[in-house]
């Protein structure tokens, strides 16, 4: 995505302040506008405070920029407790003078207005806090409380305009949070003053699945992604999931790895799959997709490679038991720590959560092989476009690490084996189809390679069997009977 820009243009680019929030700096091209105020708005509970706090904490811990958090709604103890579950140790940062938490309490009932005034007190408090630790980042959460507490909105508006100019002059990057209005971005029109960058957070529940989305409504002076990006609040903070964060510039490996079945390797140009490629096994129920996946995993573990198996339908013990019946014993690999299972029903949470869980586990274990069995279940949780987007991200992510990915997928009779997951098939490198073939009153299992990029592959339909001793692929193809075959 990077193109060479002429020098003149580069000088005019806005300086940015990195947020350190995964994904965020990619979609903003570097972070929030430096020394300008950014407005973060959204309904209650959508994550504004956490977003702002993470910006400050990362600034203090990763970019050596101390920060001041001015809270109008929660006091210091409440805030500290609320973010402790995200692994932010505010007390420690405060002790190290990297962070100041200032709680401004305004009691409407205490106040009587008796003439002209301004909000200089706020400026003085803020200025004092900034100067005390040399802060470069400031959060005001949520400044709208001023409107509820003080009756003269004209004064407040004028002072807010003055405040944002003052923050610019002070050389701090600020985040201002505000609650979503009815049909407007904020209840009191703050977006008119905070004109440089506006981010909208959204939290909706569709068909019982809850998703959080982030959208950059405006970012003056900068290119930015204009889509809605799903994000999560995980145990480490916020994680934004941009789809095009990864350019298609992964290195392609030339190493080949075995499928675990010699005959299949033979069909694949005699050498097997490319390392780091994405492989799809499709077939109707009972055609042996999981068995084939297990064979692949078994071979990899025997080579000493690390495998991560995401199972969306069967429990670990069921899988182990079923594979034992065809002579594949995965238990020793599990014991040695070479094979890890992660079991979850797709409907347990939204696609984004699955994605982040997968990311996290992959980052943690750094496997050589990853299996998702089956991916069809994702369609229960998202529509075609969303599922394709999720799979794309997973594939991209795995390719970056040269991890081989194996996906299994159900096809139903109506769809027809070749027209299944049409959208996904263009993303993968190798596609093996498992069929039930009927001929002469007999049922056979047939296996063939629909595609395998980058190599010559067999176009034969080979018969195969699930025996006590693993999957056996027939050495003889079914050429002679092709015309009589009714393929299902």
């Amino acid at each position, binding site marked *: 995505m990077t193109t060479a820009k002429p020098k003149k243009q580069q000088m005019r680019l806005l300086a940015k302040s990195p947020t350190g929030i995964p994904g965020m700096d990619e979609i903003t091209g570097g972070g929030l506008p430096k020394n300008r105020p950014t407005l973060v708005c959204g309904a209650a509970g959508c994550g504004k405070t956490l977003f702002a706090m993470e910006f400050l904490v990362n600034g203090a811990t990763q970019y050596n920029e101390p920060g001041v958090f001015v809270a109008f709604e929660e006091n210091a103890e409440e805030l500290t407790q609320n973010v402790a579950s995200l692994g932010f140790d505010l007390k420690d940062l405060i002790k190290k003078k990297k962070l100041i938490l200032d709680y401004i309490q305004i009691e409407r009932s205490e*106040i*009587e207005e*008796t003439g002209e*005034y*301004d909000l200089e007190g706020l400026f*003085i408090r803020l200025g004092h806090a900034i100067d005390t630790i040399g802060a470069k980042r400031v959060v005001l959460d949520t400044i709208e409380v001023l409107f509820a507490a003080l009756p003269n909105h004209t004064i407040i508006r004028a002072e807010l305009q003055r405040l944002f100019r003052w923050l610019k002059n002070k050389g701090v990057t600020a985040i201002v949070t505000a609650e979503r209005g009815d049909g407007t971005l904020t209840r009191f029109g703050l977006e008119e003053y905070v004109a440089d960058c506006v981010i909208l957070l959204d939290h909706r529940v569709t068909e019982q699945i809850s998703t959080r989305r982030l959208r950059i409504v405006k970012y003056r002076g900068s290119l930015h992604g204009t889509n809605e990006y799903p994000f999560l609040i995980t145990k480490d903070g916020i994680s934004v999931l941009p789809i095009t964060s990864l350019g298609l510039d992964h290195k392609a490996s030339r190493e080949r790895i075995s499928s675990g079945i010699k005959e299949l390797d033979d069909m694949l140009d005699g050498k097997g799959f490319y390392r780091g490629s994405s492989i799809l096994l499709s077939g109707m129920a009972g055609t042996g997709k999981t068995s084939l996946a297990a064979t692949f995993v078994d071979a990899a573990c025997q080579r000493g490679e690390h495998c991560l198996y995401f199972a969306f339908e069967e429990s670990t013990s069921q899988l182990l038991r079923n594979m034992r019946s065809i002579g594949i014993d995965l238990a020793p690999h599990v014991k040695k720590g070479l094979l890890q299972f992660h079991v979850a029903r797709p409907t347990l949470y939204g696609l984004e959560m699955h994605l982040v869980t997968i990311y996290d586990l992959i980052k943690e274990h750094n496997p050589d092989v990853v299996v998702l069995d089956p991916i069809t279940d994702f369609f229960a949780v998202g529509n075609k476009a969303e599922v394709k987007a999720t799979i794309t991200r997973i594939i991209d992510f795995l390719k970056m690490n040269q991890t081989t990915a194996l996906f299994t997928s159900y096809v139903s009779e109506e769809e027809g084996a070749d027209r299944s997951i049409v959208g996904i098939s263009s993303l993968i490198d190798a596609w093996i189809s498992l069929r039930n073939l009927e001929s002469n009153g007999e049922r056979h299992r047939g296996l063939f390679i629909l595609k395998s990029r980058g190599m010559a592959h067999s176009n034969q339909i080979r018969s195969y069997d699930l025996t006590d001793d693993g999957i056996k692929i027939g050495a003889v193809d079914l050429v002679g009977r092709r015309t009589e075959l009714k393929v299902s």
Partner: protein
Amino acid sequence: MEKIRQGARSRHTKKTWELRLYVAGQTPKSLAAFANLKKICEEHLAGQYDIEIIDLLKEPQLASGDQILAIPTLVRKLPQPIRKIIGDLSNTERVLVGLNLREQK
């Protein structure tokens, strides 16, 4: 901190009113507030009050104690409960209501 003891006609007169006026330098609003305050105090609280003037430009760290946002702000520390009156105190009625010297109409 300037402490201006007004109405100290007798050292044994009990000072039941402790007032703090927060300002930010000698701005017209601040000077007006102080003038108005003195007038009101002399009229209604003669001999019973203490005014403390806190200049936040000189001592910014004192703003958080009484949660000061607006300037000028008059804080009635005693008698309790704490009352805050913001503005230059030009509206005498409101000041008296704020100090609870007048019933709210």
